[in-house]
């Protein structure tokens, strides 16, 4: 250990660095490598939204906004949540807080409710930030494994044994990254029945809500018995292809918003002003673009799922987000080895499922936020790789059998 590292806090030390970044540094230096690795839209932010960002700077809107965000934006968010997801936060002055991306929202939500030692339930596989954020807040992450045979949905029977007297919160994230799983109203009802009488707060990360391909997105906050106990997190990154603008929001009861605003105002002050103006335009006039992007993602999703199934990598049908999560168990390779060999042998980068928690073993995450041409080419290469692995497996078996005969 380097001498200076002893000064680093235990909680920071306990979080391992992301091993994936190193893996993908190789990709950026590799010639002709194709990547299915990124978790952000390939579309550029629609022009009317970009234009409004530029215009707001031209107009001289270069100062802080209210800590909570521009009032007009909060009003639009309130209207949007009602119109799109039937979520009622009419008192937008006190029930909505504009944040620097959904990432900040997750952090301040956890920091405003977690006491040292409190447990936070996290269904796995999950977005890589949840566990570190819980640890940074002084909490203890408790994993709940979700299973491919349940389409990676969270089941009541999975939650019950993980609840203890120290359980403070649960993070729900549907549509899910990396699996693409969604929860229907019936699925959620089962969870609501478990949680409604318990003192457990739900942090509901709904950043992929607009990218729901079948049926419409349902939030656990749609259930009246859960509304008060749920902190809804959403943002502009995925739906409006606005990742670089760093703009998200939280909708919750005044009490939670007040607490989160404390952290937010002392650490962040306020979200970027030009991004907020752009976001107003996004909510007012951007939904038709969202619809177009969703349609395009949906086409790629179907194509990708069908190709994986055809090449013998069993792939349940993700109903949301922009990832597919095929099983690679039939190749006999563990996730990381699969990803590494695929990269070196066929120059295709995918993310090993284990990056999203232990229950991701045996899976890889492939993003379809790429042009259909790239997807097609990458899948051709993956298919070749899988065929090679399988034929090697068969020839090894034949060799082994022959040896048995010779004996």
């Amino acid at each position, binding site marked *: 250990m380097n001498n200076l590292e002893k000064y680093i806090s235990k909680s920071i030390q306990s979080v391992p660095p992301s091993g994936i970044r190193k893996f993908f540094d190789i990709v950026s230096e590799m010639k002709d490598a194709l990547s299915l690795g990124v978790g952000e839209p390939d579309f550029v932010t629609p022009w009317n939204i970009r234009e409004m960002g530029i215009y707001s700077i031209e107009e001289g809107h270069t100062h802080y906004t209210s800590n909570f965000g521009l009032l007009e934006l909060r009003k639009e968010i309130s209207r949007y949540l009602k119109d799109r997801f039937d979520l009622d936060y009419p008192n937008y002055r006190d029930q909505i807080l504009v944040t620097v991306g959904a990432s900040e929202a997750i952090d301040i939500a956890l920091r405003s409710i977690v006491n040292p030692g409190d447990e936070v339930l996290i269904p796995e596989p999950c977005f890589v930030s949840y566990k570190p954020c819980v640890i940074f807040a002084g909490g203890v992450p408790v994993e709940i494994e979700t299973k491919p045979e349940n389409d990676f949905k969270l089941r009541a029977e999975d939650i019950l044994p993980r609840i203890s007297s120290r359980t403070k919160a649960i993070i729900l994230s549907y549509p899910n990254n990396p699996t693409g799983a969604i929860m229907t109203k019936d699925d959620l009802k089962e969870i609501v029945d478990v949680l409604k009488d318990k003192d457990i707060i739900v942090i509901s990360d709904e950043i992929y809500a607009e990218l729901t391909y079948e049926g419409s997105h349902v939030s656990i906050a749609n259930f009246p018995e859960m509304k008060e106990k749920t902190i809804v997190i959403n943002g502009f990154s995925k739906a409006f292809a606005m990742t670089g603008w760093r703009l998200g929001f939280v909708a919750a009861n005044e009490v939670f918003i007040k607490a989160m605003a404390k952290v937010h105002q002392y650490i962040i002050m306020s979200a970027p002003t030009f991004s907020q103006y752009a976001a107003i335009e996004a909510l007012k006039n951007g939904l038709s673009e969202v619809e177009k992007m969703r349609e395009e993602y949906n*086409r*790629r999703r179907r194509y990708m799922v069908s190709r994986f199934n055809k090449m013998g990598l069993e792939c349940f049908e993700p109903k949301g987000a922009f990832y597919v999560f095929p099983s690679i168990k039939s190749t006999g390779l563990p996730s990381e080895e699969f990803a590494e060999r695929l990269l070196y042998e066929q120059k295709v*980068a995918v993310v090993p499922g284990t990056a999203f928690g232990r229950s991701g073993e045996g899976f890889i995450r492939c993003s379809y936020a790429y042009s259909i041409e790239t997807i097609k080419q990458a899948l051709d290469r993956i298919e070749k790789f899988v065929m090679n692995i399988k034929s090697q497996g068969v020839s090894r078996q034949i060799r082994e059998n022959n040896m048995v005969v010779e004996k």
Partner: protein
Amino acid sequence: MNVEIKVLEILEQNPKLSAQEIAVMLGEDKKKIEEIIKKLEQDKVIVKYHTIVNWERTEKEVVEAIVEVKVTPQRGFGYDAIAKRIYKFPEVKAVYLLSGDYDLHVVVEGKSMKDIAQFVGSKLAPLEYVLSTATHFIMKKYKDAGVILEDGERDDREVITP
């Protein structure tokens, strides 16, 4: 949106996709998509499968010009007859009837500026009912048929967040 429109949207973006691939992308039956494409071709909804080439990147010398043409409409035929006379020339790539300062917007292609000047001077301008022409040479194309021809935007997305 009906399936025909969806098929057209996909093909407009990428005519190289097979009926099978489009069927998968739309969650439809392959046969149905094949029939739709066949019908769209027969009905001349799909007129042609076109490739957008950035000739500036090749050795081939191509010059294009936009010619503003003022004409006298003919009794009984309006602008159609004169437009037809003009679009039959192989040098003419596109003809649009416009509202405004002039009537026909004619896109002409040739090997050199001289070529185009000759075509306009000797064939287009002397046509009966053509009152005047104004020729504008295209210096550079930035975007054509909805496609940005320059080196576009590089995919600079990081691989995983965070």
